[in-house]
Structure formats: structure tokens, C-alpha cells
């Protein structure tokens, strides 16, 4: 997080945030004043006209057309200001600048798959973008409706399985920003969570350059350990044998005989592990549901190799 934002709103980190916040606080103060006036009246009357013995009843008018027309028309005019202002801000959110970089974001139960222009493999739950550059996001979903939300940018859009939707933003600050799924999508809805990482132009180019995977001299198992977290395996698989998560634990998996849902069993070797990642429903482990998403296109061959090396170390 950069800075704490205001009491009610998160930090502003995009070009549209300031205008949206200004409208938010305009409404807030308008409402606060209206509320205090009405409640002030209510509490005042409540105290002043509390029923007391011996106070005679004094009839008072129960109708006043000018007054009633006033409190109909004035709020209406104020609301029209809010309406026009809100609509203008909304159009700013909808008109994508022509020079925007085009990212593709796919929601699937329960992760975000992000394709950066110019990078061949997709990243998971992580979106790396350059600062001060308009970014267009083409949204889609593999299964149910999801919704892509970055509070610090004040942008949000639903992702559908049968159509594309788009949105855009331009980050004005570098750093890491939370991104959420805001359309209820099932069991792990609240785990469909990631980061938008905003880098300076120079850092971004450097990242693009080295985002070709593992360094020559890096240990595969060590690199695999990083992938285990960054590719979200950790949300469904434990490494300590605990079975509280959606998928089986990896502890002691390597070399064991795995019993499958169809009653057969299989030796856990490199090919089985590879297949489990690319075609998870080909062999479903007994006692589990086949809900693991396929990682085809999300993992390079080297990534798969490194993950396998890592799983081997978990004895």
C-alpha cells in the first residue's frame, strides 16, 4: 500500500481517482448536511414537544404547499448535479485512449490469468504495468461471471464467459496495488485475489527483458518453490500434509501410489505430475473434486520441470 488514503477511501493511484473522489465527497457532505438538518429537526421537536401533563393541545397547520414544493424541487436539482457529474466521470472510465497498451485478463475459478503484450506466457494473479501509460484491459471468463476490481484505481468491470468486456486505467504511482474479484463466483471467491504491480518505464522494460523465466544458474527446485506460490498452487495444495485445502497435499506425494477416483491407481512420476498440471481432469485423485484449473499456457516447459523438481523435495 502506498499511503493510507482518506478515512473513507483508499489511496488514489490512477488518473480518474481524483474526480471520482471529489464527487464522492461532494455527495458525502451534501448528505451530511441534509441528514443533520432533518435529524436536528427531529431531535429538537422530540425534546421541545415531548408530551407533558397540563400542556394544552394547540392545532397547527398540517399542510403547506410552498414548503412541500420547495423540499421536492431543491433535492431534485441537487440530485441532477450528482447525476450529470457521475455520468461524465463514467464516460471518462469508458472511453479508452487510442494509444493504450492492450492486456488480456481472463478470470477462471479461482484465479486471474493475465497476458501482457509481448510476453508469451501468462502470469497468474499478477499484472505488471508501466506507470503513466494508459492500459486497456480486455476481460473475459472461462466459466462463471467474475469482476475485476482495483480499489486504488477506482476501476471495476464484470468478466463474462460469452462476451468480452473492456476497461482501462492509467496508473499514476508505482508500487503494488490489490486486485480483487467482486462478483460472487463460488467457494474460493475471496481467494481470487492478486496484485497490480506498477513499475517505472525503465523497470518495466527491464522486467519485460528478463521475464523469460529462470536464470541459467538458478536451482530448478528453488525456482519451482517460487512458482508454487506465484502460480497459485499454494491456495489449493499444502506442503505439510494438512488436508484443509481444496486439493491434496504435496508432502510425500513423489514416488507414492496414488489412488484415483475411478478406482485404479497410478505411480506418481514425472509424467503423471506433468499431466496433472496440464490436464488435471484426466486422472482425478480419489476423494477430491476435479476443480483444478488447467495450467496449459500458464506454465512453460521449464516451469513444469522446476515444479516437478520442487515436488520431489517435499518428502
Amino acid at each position, binding site marked *: 500500500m502506498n499511503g493510507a488514503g482518506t478515512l473513507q477511501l483508499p489511496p488514489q493511484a490512477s488518473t480518474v481517482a481524483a474526480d*471520482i473522489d471529489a464527487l464522492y465527497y461532494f455527495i458525502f457532505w451534501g448528505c451530511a448536511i441534509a441528514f443533520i438538518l432533518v435529524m436536528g429537526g*427531529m431531535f429538537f421537536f422530540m425534546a421541545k*414537544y415531548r408530551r407533558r401533563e397540563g400542556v394544552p393541545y394547540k392545532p397547527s397547520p398540517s399542510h403547506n404547499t410552498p414548503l412541500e414544493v420547495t423540499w421536492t424541487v431543491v433535492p431534485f436539482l441537487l440530485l441532477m448535479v450528482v447525476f450529470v*457529474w457521475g*455520468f461524465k466521470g*463514467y464516460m471518462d*472510465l469508458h472511453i479508452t485512449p487510442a494509444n493504450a497498451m492492450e492486456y488480456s485478463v481472463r478470470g477462471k475459478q479461482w484465479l486471474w490469468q493475465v497476458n501482457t503484450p509481448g510476453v508469451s506466457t501468462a502470469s497468474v494473479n499478477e499484472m505488471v504495468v508501466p506507470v503513466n501509460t494508459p492500459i486497456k484491459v480486455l476481460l473475459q471468463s472461462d466459466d462463471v461471471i467474475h469482476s475485476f476490481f482495483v480499489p486504488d484505481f477506482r476501476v*471495476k468491470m464484470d468478466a*463474462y464467459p460469452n462476451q468480452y468486456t473492456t476497461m482501462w486505467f492509467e496508473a499514476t504511482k508505482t508500487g503494488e496495488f490489490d486486485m480483487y474479484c*467482486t462478483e460472487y463466483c463460488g467457494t474460493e471467491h475471496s481467494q481470487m485475489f492478486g496484485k497490480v504491480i506498477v513499475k517505472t518505464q525503465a523497470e518495466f522494460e527491464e522486467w519485460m527483458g528478463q521475464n523469460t523465466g529462470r536464470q541459467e544458474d538458478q536451482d530448478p527446485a528453488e525456482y519451482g518453490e517460487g512458482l508454487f506460490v506465484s502460480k497459485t498452487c499454494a491456495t489449493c495444495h499444502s506442503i505439510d500434509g494438512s488436508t484443509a485445502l481444496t486439493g491434496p497435499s504435496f508432502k510425500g506425494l513423489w514416488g507414492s501410489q496414488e489412488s484415483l477416483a475411478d478406482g485404479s491407481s497410478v505411480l506418481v512420476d514425472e509424467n503423471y505430475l506433468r499431466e496433472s498440471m496440464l490436464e488435471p481432469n484426466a486422472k482425478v485423485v480419489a476423494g477430491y473434486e476435479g476443480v483444478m484449473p488447467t495450467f496449459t499456457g500458464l506454465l512453460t516447459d521449464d516451469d513444469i520441470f522446476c515444479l516437478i523438481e520442487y515436488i520431489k523435495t517435499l518428502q
Partner: protein
Amino acid sequence: MATQVEDINPDIPSDVNYLNVTKGLKSWLTTHDHKRIGVMYLYSVMAAFLVGGMLALAIRLELLSPGQTVMSSETYNQVFTLHGIIMIFLFIIPSIPAALGNFIMPLVIGAKDVAFPKLNLASYYIWVVGAIFTIVAIITGGVDTGWTFYTPQSIRQSGSVIWMGLGIFILGFSSIFTGLNFLVTMHKLRDPKIGWFDMPLFCWAIYGTALIQILATPVLAITVLLLAAEKIFQVGIFNPALGGDPVLFQHFFWFYSHPAVYIMILPGMGVISETITAFSHKPIFGYRFVAFSSIAIAVLGFLVWGHHMFLSAESEFSTMIFSFLTFFVAIPSAIKIFNWTATLYKGSIALTTGMLYTLAFLFLFSIGGLTGIFLGALSVDVHLHDTYFVVAHFHYVMMGGTVMAFLAGIYYWWPKITGRMYPENISRFACLLVFIGFNVTFLTQFVVGSKGMPRRYYDYLEQFAPLNQFSTFGSWILGAGILIATVSLLWSLKNGQKATANPWGAAGLEWKTGSPPPLENFHELPEIKHGPYDYDYLYGGQKPTRH
């Protein structure tokens, strides 16, 4: 002091009344008396409310800390689904119309019963069947779709959501029949001396509600039928895998559910018009404005469903129209708030429990309404949509509005319904707890949401923990308040002081018969000299006014 023109609290005998004319369970289960049916509804919806409330406490308990606190994410999702469905379809929709409306409406228009007493009883049984069906379907099918059951999420795994839908379908018929019955009753059985504008505003609200019930509820039924047809015949309607369109489902759903919001709130507004006048002994300020705003809300309520779909790939043009209309429909509600507040001016205000709930309504419903402006403003809604801000907003409207009004109505009419007075001080204390607990629970959720926490989240980031904890503490205070209120009301059934015919000195016709009323409401219909809010006549010695 002005002379009192008539006996405000006449000594009307009530030894033989609707509660004791016949005895035994069977006499209740086969009754055609609108009052008994109202009472059966009252107990049933209160039971639903308590169950839904316990589920709410479970939700808040789970959210006490990030990660798993007491239940798994599957259970959590089922719990909030059950909470939403019970509170909306089993509790709020029938609460005021079917329970209080049934009891009070025929009384105040001088009728002996509703137009179709047997249909009225049938509505109740349909409600019971629908309620059982729905709950069984959710629990056995493990439905975890939320009360909105958006496709394709809702239809992916099993068919259980269709069963749940069928339950709601059945409940819908109960609602339609009740609405129809009330409309006919008000047209046909209203005493000829009571003109449309002599009706209490509660009846206007019930009238508006009945209109929506009849016109909107069939859309829900159609939606459920389409879901079933899609499943059985495998034709694509809502399911993208079959070529259907999930956005279409949202249109159908909100075309019912937005008007349904007014099915839920209009009757509450009606109750408030009764209680605020009765406890401040003042004619309602601007009768016609309030009456017509009920009808305006009922009509305009049909035109704003799209404001739930600003981020659902809706075109910019329709988004603009829906945003505009949303601000438009805010006006009648605002008018009512101003009119109620103005009613207090120069009144003679008695701070009974019913009045305290009325004031709580004004306070909380104002917040609910005002925060709706944030959500209607398009650019701000993009940020707030589907966050906890929305959760807080509709709880302020539904619980802060309808439930407070329901409680105000219960305390106001309790002597009439049961023939007993409730214990005043303990009830006031419970009301205070409810008010404080409610604000602690939900005010925090506005901030949680505007800070960015999405709704329907089982788990959340550390940064949201303090506010969530605060909210959970609030839910305990709220729960304690409701518990005390429930126990003391039940206690008063046997032990409460006997009520007189008109303990509040109110002007409505229902107070001119015994507490509780006799079987056919009045031993003999009293002469109707004045309108339902004519306190200037009753206490001020002025000429009776008719509207």
C-alpha cells in the same frame, strides 16, 4: 383546555373476542378470520426472522478474523445464501403486509374481513409449503449461490438451485394472492363513509405494495420456469454453455427484485405514517403528498432495475437512463421523510417504544436512502458496486427501514392484537440496544466497503480486520436487543397488563373497538365522525375534517 368532544378511550367490552370465541388448535388452523391469519403470519415471520438473524450472527462470527474462524468457505457461502433467502422471501416480503396488513387493514376500513377469506387462509398455507420447500432445497442441495443466484454460477454444479427456485415460486404465489385479496378488499369492502382520502396512509402503502406484488412477482415465476426449462430441455436461455446469455438472467432477476425492494419498504413507510401521528397526536403533514408518493414509488420502482447492472456490460446509454431514473425515484422517499419530520412539529410526543422505533426508522432509513445517492452516481458506483458499501446500504434500508417499522408497528398494535400491554421500560431498553448494535454493525461496513472490501467474502486482508471485528461486536449488541425484545413480548402475552380499547389515545378506527376486537371486528360499526389523523378534532376541539 379545549373540551374533549368525544370519549377517546371508551370502555368497550372485549371478554368475547376473536382470540377466545373458538378454542383449540384446529379452530386456528381452519380459521377464516383475517385477524387470526394475521397472527399466524406474525408468529411465522418472526420465527423466520429469528432463524435468519441467527445465521447473520454466524456470518459475523466467521468474519471476526481473517481466514477460517469457525466454518469452512463452503459452509459460509451456504450460510449467507440461507440468510439472504430467509430474510427476503420468508421474512421481509410477507412481514408487514401479510402479518400487520392482514390484521389492521380490514379493521381500519370498517370491513368485517378481507374479500376472500378462504384464499387468505390458502395464502398462508402456500407460504408455509413454500418456506419448507425452499429451506429443504437449500440445505439438502447445499445451495451456495447467494440470494441472487446469478447464472451460470448457480446452474453449474447441480440442479438444486432449481428446487430452491421452485420454493420461491410457491412463496411468490402466496404473495400474489395476498396482494390480490387486499386490492379487492380495499375497493369493495371499504365502508361507504370512508373515502379514498379518508383511508389511513397505511392502506395506501398496502395498496401500492399489492400492485407491485401482482405485477412484479409473476416475472420471478417466469424466471424460475425458464431456468427449469433450460435445464430440462437443454435450450440456451441463461446458460452460455448452451448459447444463452447470463446478462438476460440479471435483467429478469432485477426486473422482479427491484420492485420487490419496494414491496419490502412501502408497507414500512405506511406503518410509520400511523405510528408517528398516533404517538405525537398530530395530523399527518401533507396527507396527499405522502399518499401519492406511495403510488409514485410503486410505479417508478418498475423503471430502475438496470441500476443493479451498471457493470454488467450494459450500454452507456441505458446506464445513463437508469441512473437518471434512480435519482428520480429517490424524491418520493425524501418527501416522506420531510413530511414525517414536519408532523412532529408542535405535536404532543409520547416516547413509547413504538415511537422510539419510529424515530429509529427515521434516523436509519435516512442514512439508507442517502447512501443510495452514492450508488446511483455512475462513476462512484463503479468503485462501490459489489463492495460492503452496498451491503451496509441495503441493510440500512431493509433492516433500518422495514424492520424498525415492523417493530414500531408491533409495539403500536400489540395491545390491539393481543389485548395485553407489553412492559414499557424493558422494551425501550431493548430498542436502545437494537439501535446502537445496528449502527455499530453496519456503519462500519460502509467504510469497509468504500475502502475496497468486496461483498460475499469469506476471507479478507489484514487491513480490514479492525473494522470487521467492530462490526461483529455490534452484531452481538443487536442480537441481545432482539432477544430481550422477543422474550419480553412473549412474556407479556400471559403476564402483561390488560389493554384498554385505545391505550394511545389514537384516532384510527381500529381503536374504536375492543382490544382484542370481536370476531367480526366491531360489535356495531361506530359512527365515523372524523378522519384517521384528526387530532385537531379529538384534542383541539376543532371541526372534524375530511380530506
